[in-house]
Every structure is written in C-alpha cells, then in structure tokens.
C-alpha cells in the first residue's frame, strides 16, 4: 500500500499544480479502491499527465494564434525580426558546423598531424622532403605511422584527349593511415610502392566523368603523363584528403603510389608533405620533443641539406581548418550579437503590446488565472512568434547559403559539405528556445512590476511607469551598443580587405592576361634543358602572332602567380656561413616580361634576344636586392649565383636593376612579398614548367585568354590548355576567404543596424504615443513645434549616445581580439570608429524623426478631452 501511494504521489507531481490541488484526493481515493498493479497505475497516471500538458499546450498555442491573428502588422514585424536573427544564426552555424565543428572525415582525426619544417632563418612551413619523411617514420617513436605525399598535376590521356588532373603521389600506407577506404577496389599496399609498380586510385568524380562510372575500371590501365598506370581503386564520393602541405584538405582527382625508393628526389627539396599519426597515448608535445632529437640526428647526418633545419608536427585539423575557424568564429560572434539585438527588439515590441493590453491581462488575473498561467501563455505567444520566425529564417538561411555557394566554394575548406541539415535544425530549435526566453523575459518582468490595481484604475489613460520606460531604454542602449560593435568590426575588416586588394603590386597589371603554369613533365618530356628552347620559342612565336596582343613573355611566375620561388641570394666574392645565405625570390623570364608589366630598368638594361643559353649568363635584380645585398658595390659589375637546373648553377653577371614588384597579397604573402628578387633569362635555365603573360590592353580579357589558349593548344596539342586570368582575378582568387568574411560581416552589420534603428523607432514611437497628452497640453500652453520636435529627437539621441559609448568600448575590445585578422589596419582605426559613430547618430535621428513629427501634430483638444 505504501509503495502504491508513493508511486502514485510521484506521478501526480507531474500534473499541473491547479489540477493537482483540485483532484489529487479523489484520484488517490480511486487508486486506493482499485487493485491494479502499482507500477501500471503509476505509468497510467504519468501518461495522463503528459496528455494533459500536451492538450494545454495545444490550447495555448491555438489561443496565441487566435490572438495574434488580430494583430497582423505586429506579427509581421516581429516574425521578420526573428527571421533575420534566427536565419542569420542558422546560416552561419551551418557553415561553422560543416567546416569547423564536424570532425575531419578520417579515422580518429585528432591524432593526425602534418610534418612541418623550420628553416635556419626561422621560417616555418607545412612541408618536408619525402626523404626526411621516410627517416622520421623510421626513427620517431611517437608516431604510429607516417605517410609521405608529393603533389602532382598529371595529364590523363584518354582516347587521344588530354585532361588536366590534380593529384597526389602518396606512400603506400597513406590511405590506411587515414583510415580511408576506397568505394571500389582496394587501397595501396606495400607492393604498389615497389619500383615500376605504377598503381593509381581515381576519384569518384573522375570515375563518373571520364570512365562512365564503369565498375570494370578497376584493373584497367590508364595513361598518366605518358606512362601506363593500373587502376586499383576508386575513392568514395566527395572524399577529402590531406595533402600534408599547404592546401590542408581537399578533393584529389587521382592518387598514385610513391615509390618506396626515391632516387630522383633531393633531400633539400622540401616540397612534399608528411602526414603522421600520433601513437596512442602520445601527445603532440611529446612527439615534438622526440622529433627535435630526430631533427638533430638528421642535421648531423645530412649536414649538406638538413643543417639548421628542424621538423615538428602540427595538428592536421588546426592546419587545415584553423584559418577558416578563426574567421568563422568572429562571424558567429556577429550572429549571436544579431540574435541579442533581435530579441531586445522583440522584447520591446512585446512589452508595448502587453502593456497596452494590460487591462485584458489584469481582468484575466482578477478572474482567477494565476500569474504563472498568464506568464506561461505570454511565453507561448512568444514561442509561437519565434517558431514562425525560425521557419522563415531557415528559408532565408537556405537562400543565403545557395546564394553564397559560389563565393564559399573555394574560400573555405570542405565547403561542399555545407548545407541545412539535422544539426542546423537542432541548432534552430535551441535558438528558438533561447530567443523565446530572451525576448519574453524583460516584458514579463515589467509586467510583474505593474500593480494590478493601478492598471484597473487608470482605465483609458494607458499610463506608462517610468521603471518600464527605463527597461525599454536599456534594451535600446544594448541594441545600439551591439550594433556599433558589429558595424565597427565589419568596417575594420572591410578596410583591411580593401587595403589588401588595393596593395600596389609595383607593376602595371592593367590589360595583362596570364596563364597558369604549364608543367613540362606532363608532356612526357624530360626537364627542359637549357638551350633546347624550341617549345618555348614556338609558344612565344604563336603568342606574338596573336591579334591585339602588344607584348608577350614566358616566365616561371609573375605577380600574384600560383608559384612562388625562393632561393639563396649569393653574391660572388662574399662569404656566407652554410645554410644561412640570405633569401631572395627568383624568377626566370623571356625578354618582353618587363615590357608586359610596363617596367623600365632603373639601371642598366632589360634582357634581350641575345641572352641565350650559349651567351654569357646574365641576371637582373630588384631595387630592394641592390639595396640589401649589393650595398657598397656597383651592381652592374656584380655577379650572383643562379640555379640553372636541379643540381647545376652558374655565376651570372647583373645587367640591370628594376623596380620592386610584389609577388603576393594578403596576410600570408606579406613577409615573402617584400623579399628582394632576382631574374634570369628563361633560355639560360632548365625549367620543369613555365607560364605565359601577355599585354592586350584593347582586348576583352576573356577573348585574350582564349587566344592564349589557342596558342598553347597549337604548340602543345597533348597538354590541356592552361587556365588564363587577369592579375586582378588572381588577386580576387587569393583573397576569397577575406572577401567572404567581409561580405558576411558586412551583411550582419547591415542587419544589426537595421534592427537597432527599428528598435529606436519603436521605442520613440511608443513613448510619443504614451506622452501624447503631455504634448497636447504643452502645445495648448504655447510650446513651439520645433521645441517638441527637439525634445523627442534629443531624447532618442541621448539614449543612442549611451549605447554608442558602451558600443565603442565593446568594439575596441572586440577589434583587439581579432587584430591578427586585420593585417595592416589598426584595431583602433579612428576613421572607421568616427564613421560608424556618425552613421549611427544620423540614423538614430532619422529613425526618431517620424514619431517626433507625429508628436507635433497632436491636436491639443483631442489630448485634453480625457483630462
């Protein structure tokens, strides 16, 4: 009997309190009389309580909907506000979740690291030579496995047609180390790494587009760069892979097995990637401590190439996602601010609505509805509005993500996985709950603050307590402060973005069209040897012959090109300690390169057609090179060392000095872009690749690009024509991530400002309505229109000013937190702050103008009638 009682009482506790106080006794009496199983009874009671709560909720929702139907304009504004706030949240969360929060698509991704090198000058980059990767694998005990990669751009020859692919040469343990299984066939095995094995695994996309999704492709032979490879597997759809290098993670078209023995690779060529998996129980710190010892051994053993170098491991996810993560968290902070603004706005609208209906609420309370019940119904009303807002918001988010897809695609890692999914909807649900309480809380508090009696007595007067007014003003202050912070941050990010894309490159790039590098090994040719320049000459001759092209040149690279070459700057007659030679950018160009970019030598001459492989080696240096490395010398008598092939070099006579060019833009490129540079004639070097640059000032860039393509196609029919672009397009491509952040923050700032202004408008408007009698009296007593106007607007400005003061401080703190992302722009940039403050004040004045004008039109007689 006691157990029955206990269980029954526990179950009864879940019923609404008023119901319980009314029926508990009767129910217990019935239960005592019955003889059912106590557990079944308890379950039955519990079921009844759930049903009852659900019925109450359904009735409350129906009631809320009925009441809201009577105020369509109010509903429209609130739902729109919520839709903007929740939609922005869902959109940004979906991006954050897909790009940053979700684990990388590999087994135990947190233990995956990327081997990186630190050079004698302290420069750090995520690359190692495959030979070093092999030695680290053999000696480092903190790793469960190490895989080596070398990126490659092979040409697939299929039915006589060439297709350019992106791919990786990988050691045979690469896929198993990652825990990635192909959808068809198998991963590489040790046998694939033996000499002459030539095995390949293709991507799902290549499998579909080039092989018609034929399952029989496994085992088939394909031609890559002129050699036959056997396809042993097909990767899963949209499989992302780490390149162990600069790209982080991306999808690859083809993987080929890297030979276990690497005779042709130079240890000093740190162009490969190394992926290492930490052994279980080993931390990154431990592994790195051990790696330091391995580095010291290698530096000792291979003093020629490894002296002064050390290796360390970085977390793969931090490397692949870190940059995107830091930008996206800033944007996420922005949407949280937007949500707060939206909730403050809705809170004020609800407070105004509920106060004008105070009498209905008071009457209901007088008729016996408990405060809890009323508060519950009002919260349900808020929840209904938030849910409606969320529905529209999710639609907005979907539209925004579709609209941004093109922009996002190359700006963020694994952008292909972004979409509205279950996690987005779960997040939307959480946001709805949070928004309901945030928006509903303050009006509920202010509701408590009103005395029931006063409300009933003041029928017809609609008095507004000063306490409530203060609460409403506080919310507007909060909105303004948040909006200021957000607009300022977005302004700073915009300025830094503009500074980056407007970075002077030091050369005239207008009318210049450039091509991506064309790789010679992909032709099946050996390295182009110096002097055997027939292919280059052929391409160049065809470029010159094109209509509308003023000048044309071939070059290894060009400003903001794909390739950045660095080498030691060694001046003849000077001594350097080994491995500590100063660094310079290097380039090799044909004579018209400087003409294409409108560059004239400051000193000496440019290259000309006599600087061939058979002539005396020559070089041209940049002005910064001269200033830094040739101090106290006549540059035109100095000689510098030029690498002419994988293992050869010669001394080249400097024949000219040219102004500095900038080879890259953006935070990444800053340090390297300011390096001194030297140029050699392309014909005096053996090079594995080259690009074309042409000046075609009167041609549409697309047309010029097609012409360049046609020249390549005619000279090199078995090579896919390289991509062509203007330098401005290259700048845009290199700054996509920043552009995205700028656009996202800009949109958020616009929404924040809009919401804050509508908040100001709402509060001023409401207070004008409340004070209309006061205005009427003042007008009747002879107050001037302008006086009333000034009164209303000044009040709005005062409220705004408090928000501005708080917002500016908040903005300064926020800006300091993201200083790393602002580049050259100061986080306290006075122009930005001044502009934002001015913008907000002017907007606040405009937002309060309409209600202020309404205040001046109050007819004294009307207002006084009720007095």
């Amino acid at each position, binding site marked *: 009997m006691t157990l029955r009682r206990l269980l029954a009482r526990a*179950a009864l506790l879940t019923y609404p309190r008023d*119901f319980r106080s*009314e*029926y508990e*006794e*009767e*129910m*217990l*009496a*019935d*239960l005592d*009389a019955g003889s*059912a199983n106590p557990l079944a*009874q308890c379950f*039955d*009671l*519990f*079921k*009844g*309580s759930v*049903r*009852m709560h659900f*019925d109450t909720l359904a009735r409350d929702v129906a009631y809320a909907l009925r009441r809201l139907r009577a105020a369509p304009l109010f509903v429209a504004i609130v739902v729109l506000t919520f839709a903007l706030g929740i939609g922005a949240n869902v959109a940004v969360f979906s991006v954050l979740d897909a790009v940053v929060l979700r684990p990388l698509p590999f087994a135990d991704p947190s233990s995956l690291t990327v081997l990186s090198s630190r050079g004698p000058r302290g420069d750090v980059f995520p690359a190692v030579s495959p030979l070093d990767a092999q030695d680290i694998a053999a000696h480092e005990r903190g790793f469960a496995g190490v895989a080596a990669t070398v990126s490659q751009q092979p040409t697939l020859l299929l039915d006589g047609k060439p297709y350019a692919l992106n791919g990786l040469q990988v050691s045979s343990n690469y896929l198993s180390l990652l825990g990635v299984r192909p959808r068809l066939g198998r991963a590489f095995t040790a046998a694939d790494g033996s000499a002459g094995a030539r095995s390949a695994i293709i991507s799902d996309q290549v499998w579909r587009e080039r092989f018609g999704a034929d399952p029989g492709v496994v085992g088939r032979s394909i031609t890559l760069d002129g050699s036959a490879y056997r396809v042993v597997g097909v990767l899963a759809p949209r499989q992302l892979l780490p390149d162990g290098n600069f790209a982080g993670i991306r999808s690859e078209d083809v993987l080929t097995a890297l030979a276990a023995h690497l005779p042709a690779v130079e240890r000093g060529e740190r162009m490969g990637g190394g992926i290492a998996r930490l052994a279980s129980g080993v931390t990154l710190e431990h592994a790195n401590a051990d790696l330091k010892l391995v580095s010291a051994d290698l530096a000792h053993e291979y003093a020629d190439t490894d002296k002064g170098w050390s290796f360390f491991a970085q977390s793969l996810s931090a490397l692949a996602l870190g940059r995107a993560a830091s930008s996206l968290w800033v944007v996420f902070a922005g949407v949280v601010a937007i949500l707060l603004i939206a909730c403050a706005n809705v809170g004020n609208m609800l407070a105004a609505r509920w106060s004008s209906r105070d009498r209905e609420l008071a009457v209901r309370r007088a008729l016996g509805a408990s405060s809890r019940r009323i508060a519950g119904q009002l919260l349900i009303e808020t929840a209904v509005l938030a849910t409606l807002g969320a529905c529209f918001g999710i639609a907005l988010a979907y539209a925004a993500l579709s609209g941004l897809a093109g922009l996002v695609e190359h700006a963020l890692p694994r952008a292909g996985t972004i979409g509205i999914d279950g996690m987005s909807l779960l997040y939307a649900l959480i946001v709805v709950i949070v928004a309901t309480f945030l928006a509903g809380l303050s009006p509920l508090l202010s509701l408590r603050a009103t005395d029931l009696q006063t409300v009933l007595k003041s029928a017809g007067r609609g008095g507004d307590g000063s306490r409530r007014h203060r609460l409403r003003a506080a919310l507007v202050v909060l909105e303004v402060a948040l909006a200021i912070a957000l607009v300022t941050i977005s302004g700073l990010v915009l300025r830094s973005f503009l500074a980056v894309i407007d970075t002077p490159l030091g050369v005239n790039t207008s009318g210049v069209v450039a091509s991506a590098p064309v790789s010679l090994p992909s032709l099946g040719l050996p390295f182009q040897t110096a002097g055997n320049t027939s292919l280059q000459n052929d391409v160049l001759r065809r470029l010159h012959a094109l209509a509308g092209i003023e000048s044309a040149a071939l070059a290894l690279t060009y400003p903001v090109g794909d390739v950045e070459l660095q080498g030691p700057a060694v001046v003849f007659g000077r001594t350097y300690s080994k491995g500590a030679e100063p660094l310079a950018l290097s380039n090799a160009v044909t004579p018209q390169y400087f003409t294409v970019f409108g560059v004239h030598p400051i000193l000496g001459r440019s290259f000309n057609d006599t600087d061939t492989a058979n002539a005396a080696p020559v070089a041209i240096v940049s002005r910064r090179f001269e200033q830094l490395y040739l101090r106290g010398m006549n540059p035109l008598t100095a000689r510098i060392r030029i690498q002419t092939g994988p293992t050869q070099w010669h001394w080249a006579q400097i024949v000219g000095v040219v102004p500095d060019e900038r080879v890259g833009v953006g935070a990444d490129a800053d340090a390297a872009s300011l390096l001194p540079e030297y140029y050699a004639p392309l014909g005096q070097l053996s090079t594995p690749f080259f690009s074309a640059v042409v000046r075609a000032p009167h041609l549409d860039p697309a047309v010029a690009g097609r012409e360049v393509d046609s020249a390549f196609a005619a000279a090199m029919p078995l090579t896919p024509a390289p991509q062509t672009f203007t330098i401005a397009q290259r700048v845009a491509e290199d700054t996509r991530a920043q552009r995205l952040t700028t656009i996202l923050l800009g949109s958020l700032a616009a929404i924040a400002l809009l919401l804050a202004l509508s908040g100001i408008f709402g509060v001023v408007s409401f207070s004008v309505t409340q004070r209309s009698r006061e205005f009427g009296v003042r007008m009747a007593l002879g107050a001037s229109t302008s006086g009333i106007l000034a009164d209303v607007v000044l009040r709005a400005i005062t409220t705004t000013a408090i928000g501005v003061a708080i917002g500016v401080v908040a903005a300064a703190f926020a800006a300091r937190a993201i200083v790393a992302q602002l580049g050259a722009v100061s986080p306290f940039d006075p122009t930005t702050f001044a502009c934002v403050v001015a913008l907000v004040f002017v907007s606040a004045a405009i937002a309060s103008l309409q209600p202020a004008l309404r205040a001046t039109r109050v007819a004294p007689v009307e207002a006084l009638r009720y007095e």
Partner: protein
Amino acid sequence: MPNDVESLLPLNPRVFYILLSLAEEERHGYAIAKAVETITGGTVRVTPGTLYPLIRQLLTDGWIHELGEDAHDPRRRRYRLSALGKRIAQAEARRLDALVRVARSFALLPATHA
C-alpha cells in the same frame, strides 16, 4: 440549437460512456469508472489518469455539473449530467443509430434486432 451540438460530434468514446453513466444517475468519479467498465462489458476502462482530466474538461465546458461531497466518502465529489451534456449525448446516440441503420441497409448487420 441542434446544429450547435452536432458540431461537437463525433465524441471521444470515453467521453460518450462517461456521459452515459451519468445519464443513468449522478455518480462520483470511481463509480463512473466502474459504470463505464460495466456498460462496455469490460472492454473500455477509464483509469484515474484519463478520467479526472476529462472530468475537469467536461466541467469547464459545462457538460456536467459538480454536486459537492459524497455522503459516504468526503474525499469524493459527485457529478451529474447538465442539460447541455444530455443534448450532446443524445445527438451522439442519434449519430450512431443512423450509422447502424446505414450498415443494416447494406446488409452488414442482421436486418432485425430483438
């Protein structure tokens, strides 16, 4: 206003049986549950978790009235059918009767009944 009542049909079967049990005589909650069990030959049971929420709803809607404490057991209250409740129960019975007649005319049920 028969139309008014008809808009409330069909009734939840449990509600119908509760109304039927009260049409016979006024009862307290436990007696209602017992009566429903008897009326339906034990096929429908209303447990306290179902019964009292329904009673409260029926009271709120004015289909039944509360009569105060039971003479024998002060913990229980007695309920009786209101005029509105009776009209609703009758309307439901008519609706069911019409259904049964249709079923007969389609020979789904025997044509005559004792």
